[in-house]
């Protein structure tokens, strides 16, 4: 039938245009190539950490010393991971962490140390080991501390260098700091020290309380500004508010970026956070809740509206047929 043929032509050219300006153009725009012009495929590893990306990056940069350092570091991490950790023995070691990770929300060495209440549930085991061994290497921001600066958690290297002790502390975290965690808690523990979410009333100091008096609200605001200034000075710029990030970045970008910030934004001072798969899902759930709050309502209303128009079209077709019956 002629009209269907015309429709097919219209649909074909519309879809072709769509393909070219959306999937194809975005692929070309975000394509990353190495010095030899080969395309770098950035893949997610399911939020497991073994240093493969870091070594690859160093190889690509052609920095042999760095390749060796990365290889040696992650080999040692793997070695510690093979040890059997003793959670009970780890408790004493964890006491060392409590000096800073005490939930006091106090800025120490440029940033507020994260709360570790759910560290065992949120972070990957290998990553935790790596982090205790050498925070800068684990976070893949060692380039930032190569010369003079010291990582705010750098002192841990001298405090806890025994392999068995590290294995014990990680075993303690995995056993005693696991528990159920809400998506908001996950976000607060993993991201909020640097990133505000104004649509969720979160600042770098955590959730903004309700104040009775304006002067208290203003005093809090000043504290937030101070903290933001400290973060800004440390990170180089104030990390972006994440209210809309779920819409501003693609799923693929979010995954690979959170897994290894350097992969999508080479040279960034954002550290690798070390979320495991469940932790990432929780964080993503929170960001979706804040940035795309109509998702559930859309899914509930969509079938009804579309169903209505299907019915509408069927009735319209019957009407059209009755009107055109005697015309040919």
């Amino acid at each position, binding site marked *: 039938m*002629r*009209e269907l043929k*015309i*429709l097919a032509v*219209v649909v074909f*050219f*519309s879809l*072709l*245009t*769509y393909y*070219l*300006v*959306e999937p*194809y*153009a975005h692929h*070309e*725009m975000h394509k990353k190539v190495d010095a030899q012009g080969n395309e770098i495929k950035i893949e997610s590893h399911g939020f497991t950490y073994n240093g493969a990306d870091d070594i690859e990056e160093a190889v690509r940069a052609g920095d042999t010393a760095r390749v060796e350092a990365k290889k040696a570091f992650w080999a040692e991490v793997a070695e510690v991971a093979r040890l059997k950790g003793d959670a009970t023995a780890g408790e004493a070691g964890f006491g060392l962490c409590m000096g800073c990770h005490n939930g006091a929300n106090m800025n120490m060495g440029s940033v507020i140390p994260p709360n570790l209440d759910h560290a065992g549930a949120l972070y990957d085991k290998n990553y935790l080991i790596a982090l205790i061994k050498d925070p800068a290497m684990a976070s893949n921001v060692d380039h930032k501390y190569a010369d003079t600066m010291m990582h705010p958690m750098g002192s841990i290297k001298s405090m806890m260098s025994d392999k068995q002790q590290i294995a014990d502390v990680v075993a303690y975290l995995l056993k005693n700091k696991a528990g159920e965690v809400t998506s908001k808690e996950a976000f607060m523990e993993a991201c909020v020290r640097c990133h505000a979410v*104004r*649509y969720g009333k979160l600042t770098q100091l955590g959730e903004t309380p309700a104040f009775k008096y304006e002067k208290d609200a203003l005093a809090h605001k000043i504290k937030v500004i101070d903290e933001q200034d400290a973060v800004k000075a440390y990170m180089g710029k104030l990390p*972006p508010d994440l*209210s*809309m*990030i779920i*819409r*501003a*970045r*693609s799923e693929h970008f979010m995954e690979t970026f959170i897994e290894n910030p350097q992969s999508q934004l080479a040279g960034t001072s954002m550290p690798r956070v070390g979320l495991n798969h469940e932790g990432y899902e929780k964080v993503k759930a929170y960001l979706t809740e804040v940035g795309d*709050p*109509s998702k559930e*309502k*859309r*899914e509930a*209303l*969509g079938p009804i*509206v*579309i169903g209505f*128009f*299907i019915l*509408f*079209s069927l009735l*319209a*077709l019957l*009407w*059209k047929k*009755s*009107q*055109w019956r*005697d*015309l*040919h």
Partner: protein
Amino acid sequence: MAHFEKAKNLNEWLDQRLAINTLKRVLNTEYWIPKDINFLWAMGMVLAATFGILVLSGIFLLMYYKPDTNLAFDSVNYTIMSEVGYGWLWRHIHGVGASIVFLIIYIHMFTGIYYGSYKKGRELIWLSGMALFVAFSAEAFSGYMLPWGQMSYWAGMVITNLFSGGSLEAYGLVEWIRGDYVPGDAFLTRFFMLHVFLIPLVIIGLIVLHFGTLRIPHVNNQEGAEIDFKEAADLWKSGKKKESKVIPFSPVFLSKDVFVMGVYFILFFYLVFYNFNFAMDPVNFDPADGLKTPAHIYPEWYFLWSYEILRPFGKDAGLIAFGIAQLALFFLPFIDRSPNVAPAHKRGLFQVWFWVLLVDMIVLTAMGKLPPTDPTFAWIGLVSAWTFLALGPILFIITMFEKKIEKGA
């Protein structure tokens, strides 16, 4: 004053004062449409319906939107999306509608070109339609500024810079348009006014004109046949529906229009509920930042073809090419010298010309978004821009030699 009898019912009362029976006849029941047309002729009604939806959803958004550079982003992304009941629905309808309306406009335009609906006697239909296209473009651009995201800001920067006139460097003009050295509050509020008041008013006026231009030449048909509408209408009125070449707009053609609209709305609301992202550039969910240029600045898809005519040339040549591209399609009825009003597949070389134009515009659209740093893309962009510019003179020449198609052939 005229003499009024006591009316028997409301219809009669209104008819005495407004002549609604005459209006109904002229605009509906005796507005004759050729029988031989396909669903592409329903695109006009689809466009009218989409414009209606855009106005309606726009009114709801207007109630909560704040035209202030400090508040605009959050009023759209937070207030409307989270706090206003069904605000998300209005916003997604408006966003999808703004994008899809251009798809339909392009289908409508290419239908007109394919069937020669701009030719002899129908020039004003084409010209008023092109004026509508320009008005819709201005409406879309001004609307795109309003959420004050990164792409709003930087697209505003790039497009207003065009008014510096290349080497003329007429920066005074650019600043006058912006009301500032860079896009700022004055820029946002004046584009807000343009988007919600002035341009919609112009569009409504042009729609009325566009409908008016149809009344005497009538809409074209699939074969480009010349119909004696009076004779055909008399046949219809005498009950010879099969013999008559025309049908009344209402209810006969309307029933087809409504069916096409129904199918269109299935697609429309599928996009609203399940794929609204296609119409919203992710970059625009980053708030405007005058200190951070996005990696790639590109317009929405429907402007890409003309953007790509600007891009591959130098400063001044690019601006001239861009200007020509904006105006070229207006002159179509005067460039096409052929005596035939017929579908492209009956017009020999014109058919080749038509498909080259269509494909060239799609290639330009694609290249307009791709990074210009890639030498292959830049070369394809340049060639397709030249192709577009050459298509006008080529049309002039090939149609001069086009033979008149004999009636009944």
